[in-house]
């Protein structure tokens, strides 16, 4: 079903494995075979040692909120219908310079406008949750909270 969401190409040369990992419930990060440094977004060459050999490592999926915004219209129709919603950038626990854009939700397939933006705090802990949109699995984030 067409949702009107903007979605990634799942077959990209450097990126397909990231999206495939999401579909298996794994948040993967690319790592250099030679110097072991992590890098994101994925790309063919390691900027630290220029190796073109890389592999994928699963992460804990734990992160903290680095920043967030609350978009209001005018927006593309599928997003305008949900506005105002949140968009967050998270920093991974294992390496806080690895950051990803996502949304803070209350459950994996919950809407991106469910959480009151006034309650979102920079540095609050979150963990990854995988949402299905058409044939794509997107990494979103739920509050890690005290468990």
């Amino acid at each position, binding site marked *: 079903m067409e949702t*009107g*969401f*903007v*979605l*990634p*190409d*799942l077959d*990209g040369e450097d*990126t397909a494995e990231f999206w495939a990992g999401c579909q298996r419930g794994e948040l993967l990060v690319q790592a250099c075979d030679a110097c072991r440094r992590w890098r*994101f*977004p994925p790309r063919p060459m390691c*900027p630290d040692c220029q190796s073109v050999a890389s592999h994928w490592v699963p992460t804990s999926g734990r992160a903290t909120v*680095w*920043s*967030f*915004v*609350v*978009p*209001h219209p*005018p*927006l*593309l129709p599928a*997003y305008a219908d*949900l506005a*105002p*919603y949140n*968009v967050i*950038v998270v920093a991974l626990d294992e390496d806080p*310079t*690895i*950051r*990803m*854009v*996502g*949304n803070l939700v209350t459950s994996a397939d919950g809407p*991106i406008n469910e959480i009151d*933006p006034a309650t979102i705090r*920079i540095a609050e802990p979150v963990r990854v949750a995988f949402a299905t*949109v058409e044939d*794509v699995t*997107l990494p*979103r984030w739920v509050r890690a909270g005290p468990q």
Partner: protein
Amino acid sequence: MTVTLRDQVAIVGIGQTGFGKGLDDSELSLGCQAIVAALADCGIAPGEVDGLASFTMELNREVDVARNVGLGDITYFSQVGYGGGAGCGTVLQAAMAVATGQCRVAVAWRARKRAAKASRPWAQVPPRLSDHWQWSRPFGLLRPVDEVAMLARRYFHEYGGTRDHLANVALAFRKHANRNPAATMHDKPLTREQYMDARWISEPLCLFDNCLETDGALAVVLVGADRAVDLAQRPVFVHSGAQGLPRQHQTMINYFNDDPLEGPSWAAARQLWRGAEFGPADVKVAQIYDAFSPLVPLSLEGYGFCGRGEGGPFTDGGALEWPDGRLPTNTSGGGMSEAYVHGFNLVLEGVRQLRGTSTSQVADADTCLVTSGEGVPTSALLMRN
């Protein structure tokens, strides 16, 4: 051998069309009209033009501009990428071409019809994304304002910046526009209360933190300094110029490196000041790229007017306002209150300040900094008269 740019080339002609929404003339016609106006301003015939520089996003191709305006043999033509980061870079590349003899009369220009909502790039529903936007757009981070708001929120968090600082920026530029009859916001004063009550576009940014999408075109003419002194207008010399694409930078969504709040301005500034005989304290007036208000405090830091995190407080006390501020900035109203033509109107206002013809003329202005977009691979110019 090193060839330095320093004051070897001058901007001798400036031209622009009117600004507005839904202008009747085509983008090609507007661009050609601006170029003809700039040539008339300095008294150089179209057939003498042999160099061209513009943006990769410019829709008017060199061949069409040359065939319409009646240009001669073009021996240098170049385009600079990254949208709002390109403006000063086009002038810089034109100046370098004149300085090295690749051409003798260069024109840099920008023509743009973006006022119609449907013309905005973010409003097009794209096919599946295979470029870097796949890491941000699926989550609803769709527009440039959303991408800059993300940095602004982090900036507030790290340094204690506030919406009052951004209001300082918006109000200063609006005051200047209110003095400039060519500005689209000439007749519309703005108060701090109106700013604070404005609707959100992408929290923490409101309506008045955004530039004005505008139809219009602008052009400048450059020649060597030896010829410049004989022409109709007071020459404005390109003292130094730079482009900047810092390590591990990603355009607009610069979240994927060690220090996202140190953007392209810092890289451009290092080269800009290396090429100059003076420093930030000697700059009398500035035109700073302002597609969104947070880019101004970031650029003030990047170009060395204050330290990291001090760009917000720098704007206090009317610091950016003509005539008494410590650094009168965007004296024609800038992208937020004159017109947003990808920042090219900032170049022309820099020239007017050094000719002594601005509608908010800074007394004894003899140096001006002009910058292009922070947050994208960028460029900057230092001018003197």
